[in-house]
Each structure stands twice: as structure tokens, then as C-alpha cells.
């Protein structure tokens, strides 16, 4: 069965992307922020559309693609991220590149890639979706052409990203070679036939897939590209990179593991647990030494990926029984993380755009004096990352670790808690710069643009809402992961 109406949101996004490029060509005199607003509106419409096309039918497109609550969850999350990224770019990108139509178009294209990563139920489809997202990012990271760092970041990202894609493809080919199919369900059925013994080539293929996807979500030891890309990319793209690429990566991982490998946990869970521990340690320890704020955020986001990988490892240990609750906790954490990151970058973009400072940590010195509200939002998002109570990070991490509390994994959770407390140290160093020192080069007071102010406030409220009353978001996440394990259970039985 092929129900082409399922992709109306994607048709819309692709059309809007082309339209935005065309508009810039047709009306070069258009005020430059207009394109950003149009993109944001297009993304919001995309989110609205996606709420109406949720058939939850696993049979459509022969099981290549499934549009269900899970896909919708990531469609909406991605749409929100793109809308906010576009708004952030309005002033930030104005003088950094001469042509911006493609920039905004690519944001929407990346959104399509993200959706298909969440929707794919076949390895090659997932791979193509991942490449759509990656290619958009390669260009977006290097978009500030006058900036040497941006170009350097883009080049590094492309080279390493290409390598990771090759690794991923090799893994896919190995899995295909053993099981004779690239469909998630088919792989699960093949594994079930083997009676639990995993072929060595299958394990190797799985490991390569983990490495390839691990690169995309910047898990250690595949994280080397992240700090450079984050630092070189324009600020809004850094925000987009640290939210969208991770959300998409985990969507793919969840879909793949819940459908294919969940019953065979013992052959891969140790690897994921190891990667999770390494990622938490590397991310949080290296972050301490950073002097550049974007690099610090990069390493801190690596740490966050480590926490999320703990859940994947827990699914390996606990199987489908705990899978559902653990995955919904992971989605909840993802929402909290995305909101906090966007809040952080909204405040930083508003600040850097007007002060013209570079992104060193010293650049925000005395921010509490000149921009108390922005400083408050930066503080709130950093506290949320650190997992302090009343901010999103605490509640979401608590649920994640509670859901992952498998007996064999307790030491990993112990590492995660210790890592959280280490992270508080470097977040406090940033907060210290804002609150305890006088601004360098005199006090620069300015009015924040009303639209930035409104966005920052919205995200700030979001951080507090998820932190204090996570119930509703958790229920949404719970509904979103429901189809995942149903399919896995059907195929396994």
C-alpha cells in the first residue's frame, strides 16, 4: 500500500525550501530577515500539518517508512527547532553571507532528513535520510564564507562525516550479508530464527552501525569533529547542530534497536554501555578546560549524549519490558535538552549580535550587569544541563536513570551522576563570569529585540515547565514510543 498523502508535510517543506530560494532570486531587494520569518512560518506550518497525518499503519510503503506517533513527535520537535533556528539567524546571518536563500532552504531540507530518520524502518532508507541531514549540515556549517573558521569546520566535518558514512554503510552491508534483508523487522525475524546466537559478522556489522550513528550524535570516541564544527559554525547553526542532529540520531537508534536488536541485547549492550561511559567522561572532563563557549557547549552536549546512551544500553540489558518506559524517558530528556540548548543559544545570539564579542567565555563577562534577563536565561539553561532541581535537566535525568536502573548498569548510572556533578563545575565557571565580574570594555546596555525576548521567555518557561511539571510531556513521549515496541514484539513473537 502506498499512501502518498502521508508525506504532505514533507512536500510542503520541500516546496517551501524551493520557494524561499526562488523568492530571494526574484526579489533581491527584500529585507533580509524576511526570509528567516518565512522559513519559521513554513516550519510551523510543517509542524501543524504533521499533526494530521498519523495513520500508525506499519504496512504502508511495504514497511520502508512508518508514519506514526513516533515520527510525529520528531516532526514536531524538528519543526520547532528549525523555526527557532531560522529566527535566530534573522539578524545573525544578515552580514555573514551574501546569499541566504539556500541557507534557509537547507534548514527545511534538513528537517525532511530528520523526519525520515525517525520514520525509516529499513537501513538504506535510514542511511539516505541521514545523508540528507548530514549534507545540509556540511553546507550550513560552512555558510559564513567570510569566516575562516567556518570553512575549516565545514571541511573537517565533511571529511570525517564522509568517513563515518562509509563505516555505517559497511556495517549495513555486513548486516545485509548475514540476514539477507535491510528491513528492521526482517533483521529481527532473522535473528529470532538463529535462536539467539548472533553471527560474528552480524555483530561486526552492528558495531560498525553503532560507530557510524555514534559519529552523528557525537559519542566518544567518534566525537572529534564536534568541537571544531560547533566552534566554526554560525551560532544558530551550532544550536541546530547540537539539537537536530542528536534528536535525529537517537530517533534512528531507537527505531532500529527497538525493532531489530532489542531481543539480542547481550551481543551489543556492553559496547553501548562502554561508549556511554566513555562519552560521559570525555565530554565532561574535556569541557572543563575549554575557554571558548561554543566548544564548551560542544563538550557538554557530548556529555549529554553519554547520558542518553545509558538508556540505549539499558534497553539492551532490560529488553522490551523496560524498553518503553526507558525510551519515553529518553524522549523526555531529549525535549528538555533541546529546549535548554535553544534557550541558551537564543540568549547568546541576542547578546553576541549586539555586542559583537567573540564566543570566548570571557566575552560574556559581566553579562548579568548589562543584560540581567539574558544572563538569567543562560544560567537557567546551564543549570538544566547540569541537572539542578526545578530545571528540565533534573526531572528528565532522574526519569532516565530511574528507568535505566538495571542491576548490571548501576555503575554506569553512578558514573552518570558523578559526571553530572563534574559538569556543574564548568557550568558554574561560566555563570561566575556573568555574575561576578564587571563587563570588559564598559557597560553595554541595549534593548533586546522583542521577538528574541519573546522566544527566550517561551523557552525559559519551557525549561521550568519540563522541570517542575514533566507529566504532560512525558505522556506525549510515552504515546510516541508506544508503536516502537509493539512492532518489535510482533516481529519477535
Amino acid at each position, binding site marked *: 500500500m502506498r499512501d502518498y498523502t502521508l508525506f504532505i508535510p514533507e512536500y510542503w517543506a520541500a516546496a517551501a525550501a524551493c520557494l524561499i530560494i526562488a523568492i530571494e532570486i526574484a526579489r533581491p531587494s527584500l529585507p533580509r530577515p524576511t526570509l528567516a520569518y518565512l522559513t519559521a512560518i513554513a516550519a510551523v506550518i510543517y509542524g501543524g500539518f504533521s499533526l494530521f497525518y498519523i495513520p500508525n499503519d506499519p504496512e504502508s510503503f511495504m514497511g520502508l517508512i512508518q508514519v506514526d506517533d513516533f515520527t510525529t513527535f520528531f516532526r514536531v520537535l524538528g519543526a520547532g527547532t528549525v523555526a527557532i533556528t531560522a529566527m535566530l539567524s534573522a539578524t545573525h546571518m544578515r552580514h555573514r553571507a551574501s546569499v541566504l536563500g539556500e541557507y534557509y532552504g537547507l534548514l527545511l531540507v534538513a528537517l525532511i532528513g530528520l523526519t525520515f530518520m525517525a520514520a525509516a524502518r529499513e537501513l538504506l532508507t535510514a542511511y539516505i535520510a541521514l545523508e540528507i541531514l548530514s549534507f545540509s549540515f556540511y553546507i550550513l556549517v560552512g555558510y559564513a564564507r567570510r569566516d575562516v573558521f567556518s570553512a575549516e569546520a565545514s571541511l573537517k566535518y565533511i571529511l570525517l562525516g564522509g568517513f563515518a558514512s562509509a563505516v555505517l554503510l559497511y556495517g549495513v552491508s555486513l548486516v545485509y550479508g548475514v540476514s539477507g534483508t535491510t528491513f528492521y523487522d526482517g533483521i529481527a525475524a532473522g535473528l529470532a530464527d538463529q535462536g539467539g546466537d548472533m553471527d560474528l559478522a552480524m555483530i561486526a556489522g552492528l558495531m560498525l552501525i553503532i560507530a557510524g550513528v555514534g559519529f552523528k550524535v557525537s559519542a566518544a570516541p567518534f566525537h572529534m569533529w564536534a568541537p571544531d564544527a560547533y566552534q566554526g559554525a554560525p551560532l544558530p547553526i551550532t544550536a541546530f547542530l547540537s539539537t537536530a542532529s542528536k534528536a535525529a540520531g537517537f530517533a534512528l537508534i531507537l527505531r532500529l534497536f527497538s525493532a531489530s536488536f532489542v531481543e539480542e541485547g547481550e551481543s551489543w549492550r556492553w559496547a553501548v554501555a562502554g561508549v556511554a561511559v566513555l562519552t560521559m567522561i570525555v565530554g565532561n572532563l574535556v569541557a572543563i578546560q575549554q575557554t571558548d563557549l561554543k566548544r564548551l557547549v560542544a563538550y557538554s552536549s557530548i556529555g549529554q549524549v553519554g547520558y542518553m546512551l545509558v538508556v540505549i544500553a539499558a534497553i539492551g540489558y532490560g529488553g522490551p519490558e523496560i524498553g518503553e518506559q526507558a525510551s519515553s524517558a529518553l524522549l523526555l530528556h531529549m525535549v528538555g535538552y533541546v529546549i535548554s540548548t535553544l534557550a541558551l543559544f537564543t540568549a547568546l545570539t541576542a547578546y553576541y549580535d549586539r555586542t559583537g564579542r567573540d564566543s570566548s567565555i570571557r566575552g560574556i563577562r559581566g553579562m548579568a550587569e548589562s543584560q540581567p534577563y539574558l544572563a538569567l536565561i543562560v544560567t537557567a539553561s546551564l543549570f538544566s544541563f547540569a541537572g539542578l532541581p526545578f530545571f528540565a535537566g533534573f526531572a528528565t535525568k532522574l526519569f532516565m536513570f530511574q528507568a535505566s536502573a538495571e542491576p548490571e548498569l548501576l555503575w554506569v548510572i553512578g558514573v552518570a551522576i558523578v559526571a553530572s556533578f563534574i559538569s556543574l563545575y564548568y557550568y558554574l565557571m561560566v555563570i561566575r563570569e556573568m555574575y*561576578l565580574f564587571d563587563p570588559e570594555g564598559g557597560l553595554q546596555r541595549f534593548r533586546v529585540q522583542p521577538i528574541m525576548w519573546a522566544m527566550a521567555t517561551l523557552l525559559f518557561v519551557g525549561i521550568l515547565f519540563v522541570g517542575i511539571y514533566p507529566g504532560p510531556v512525558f505522556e506525549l513521549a510515552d504515546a510516541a514510543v508506544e508503536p516502537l515496541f509493539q512492532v518489535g514484539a510482533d516481529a519477535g513473537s
Partner: protein
Amino acid sequence: MELSLVLFLPAAAGVVALLLPAAQEQLARWVALAGSGAAFVLSLVLFFRFDNAAEGYQFTERHTWVSVGDFNLQYYIGVDGLSMPLVLLTTFLTVASVLVSFNITMRPRLYFASLLVLATSVIGVFVALDFLLFFLMWELELFPMFLLIAIWGSGRKEYAATKFVLYTIFGSALMLVSILVLAFDQGTFDIELLTQAEFQDTIIPLNLVFLLLMAGFAIKLPVVPFHTWLPDAHTNAPTAVSVMLAGVLLKMGGYGMIRMGVGILPEQAANWDIWIAGLGAFSVLYGAFITLRQTDVKRLVAYSSVSHMGLVLLGVAALGDTGLTGATYQMVAHGLITGLLFVLIGLMYDRTHTREISQLGGLARQMPLLATGLVFAGFGSLGLPAMAGFIAEITVFIGAFERFEWLTLLAILGVVLSAGYVLWMLQRVVFGPVRHEWDELTDQRAWWEHTTVAALAAVIVLFGVFPSILMDMINPAMEAVAARVVL
């Protein structure tokens, strides 16, 4: 409902103070006084309505807060004979702290807002009956405290603030681990249920859980060797924050030990009692010896707090109702007496701008009222009969002597030392030759100075002469805790 009001009135007033327009920022202190005063009056009403004969918690309120999966987080608060006096102490000292901050002119809105949020978080720690709510309130205290020390402090204020935060966070990390272990075993965070629970096979051994929990509280109390944050924080904090810190924040540690440590894990407490008592006696002595050597008045009082908190630990370790009652009484008494000491030292520092003992002297001539107050509070600190501190110390000693004779005798030696450092300090600061550089300074003069000092002094005498007001409330609750301990 009433208890929630007590809990949230200060924070609500803090938010109002923060939202005042810049032109009216001096109004912040009145808003703060109104909010903290209302909370105090309300908690006083609760104190008198408290039924000493009733078992269990009173004025309870329970709402489901977050319920996801098999995970239940409640907003569950209530007080018993242990927490009621501490809640009253907190609201009382909050009013005192607001009053002694009346001359703050630097960013008063943020200052009073932080102070009041701090008060709410401390009250929250005392009334929370859900372990996670307890932990949330425990953590909430960090940020206002950090700001208060780092912005309005003196000397190495940033260092002191960071050190305070890092120490506390380290303690809460240990605590969080044990909270989660206990809660996952029982499937609930309800302190009431956890207290009655029989733990089966927790993921890490219960003895270790107990030690982690106690370590978290010991950092807060503080117990030697986890005490080094305290002198730094005290010395560099503004007066009101020192009052809150010594008066109630340290008590969070003692409260946690009794409610969670002994209350939830009585068996493990019995396993480790001699070690705890030893650490307590050591803290008393070590603190007293270090105090003798201090040259900064504030640091001196800070170290004396370490010594006095050792007595709390000793009383807890006795694990009998007398010792526990004594420990609780000591917390209240120390809160009042040390609060008064810090108020007076703060007022003195406002005038002389030095805390070095060697630069002070003969102040009785220039500031007779302040000097009288300081002598009074000093006597309270060394445990003079007819003051609250005496009752507390004697109860702790009676309770502890039954079980640890030698350790108690050592601790009593610490009290002798306390007479030494207090009297020596008074002799050097208040008496001695008059220093003429202080001739121009005024004595205690403003109404808010008089009110604070007089109120604190009156309560210290009240609880010293009529201990039964508190004893009758604390003792039944402690009997219930002690009844679960099998020695």
C-alpha cells in the same frame, strides 16, 4: 494549607521584591519584612496549635505532583515534634536576618529576594515528607546562598561562595545516590513509608547507603573533617547570611541525620554509633582548640559552631530519646545564640569595619549596648545556666553518657574550652584599654537593631528558663524515633 503558606510566603514576598520597579527598590526591605513576618506569625500560630500528644505528622498536605510510569513524586509536607521547632526557628531567624539587613543599599531587590528564597528552601527541607521534595528543597538553597555570599560578601567572597557550593553539591551527590537506592527498593519516596519499611535487597548494601547519607549530612552540619567550607563561608558572608547559615542551614544536616539517617535506617545507625559518637566528640574538641587560636571574631564564632555541632552529632549517636532530644534542643539553642552573636558582630563590623580581634578593644566604653549584648550572647555560647544552650548541652551529655562514658567526658572538656575562648574573646574585644580610633562611633541605635537583639536575647532566656515548652514537643517525636532503634 497553613503549612504551605508558611513555606511559600517568604518566596512569594521575594518574587514581589524582585519585581519592584527600580525607583522603588528601597521598598524591597519592607516587602521582605512583611513576607517573613507573616510567615513567622503563622508558624507561631501553628506552634501553639501543635498537639504534643498526637502521634505522627501534623498539618499534613499531600498532592500528587508528577506521576509517570511507576514513578510517583508527591508534594507531601507536614511537621512533627522534630521539625516544628526548627520551622519556627527558621521563620524567626528570617525576620531577624531581614531586620539586620535594613541598611543594605546595594541591589536590595535581588538581595532580599535571595534571602527569602533561601528561607523557603530551608523551611521546605524541614517540612518535606517526600524524599525527593526534600532533596529539591535542599538543592534550591544553593543558588541564593551562592549569590548572597558572592555579591554581598567581603574578602575572598567568590572563593568562599564557590567552595560552599562545591562542598554542598558533593554532599548532595552522595545523598542522591542513597535516596535513589532506598526509593527504588521500596518504590516510593514517601518518608513516612520509608521509615516503616523493611528493606529487602537494596542494590548497594544498606550500611553503605547509610554512610553515604550521613556523609551528605555531615558535610552540611559540618563534622570535622568536612568542615573547612564553614569558616570561609561565614567569614566572607554578609551578616544576615551568617545568621541564616549558622542559625538554620547547619541544622539541615542535623535534621537529616535524625529524620533520614536514624529514622529510616535505625539498624545501620546502631552499627555505626560508636564511630559517629567518636567523630562528634572529636569535632567538639578539635573545633574548640581551633577556635582558641582565631584572630578574626567571625571566624572564631564559625569554628565554635563546628564545636557545638559536634555535640549534636554526639547526641544523635547516643540513639536514645534523651540524646536525640538534646541534639534537637542544641540545634535550636545554637541557632538562637550563634544567630545573636553574628548579629552583634555584624553590627560591630558595620561600625568599625574590622573583625580583627587585635584591632578591637575596650568597646564597652564606646558601645555599651552592643558590648552588653555580646557578653550576653557569649555567656549563652559557653552554656551558662538559665540560657537555652545550657539545657541543650546538659541533655546531650545525660543522653550520651549512658552509652559512651569516655567520649562524653572528652566532649565535656570541650565545653570547658568554650568558656576559655569565649571569655578570652570578650576580654580582648569588649574590655581592655580603650582604643581612641573608635571614639567617634555610635552605639546600637536604630530601631531594627534594638528589636533584633532584644528579641533574640529574650527567646534565649525563655528557652533556658522554661525548657518544657520545647522539650514536651521534641521528646515524644524522639521517643518514636528511638523506639525503632535496637541496640
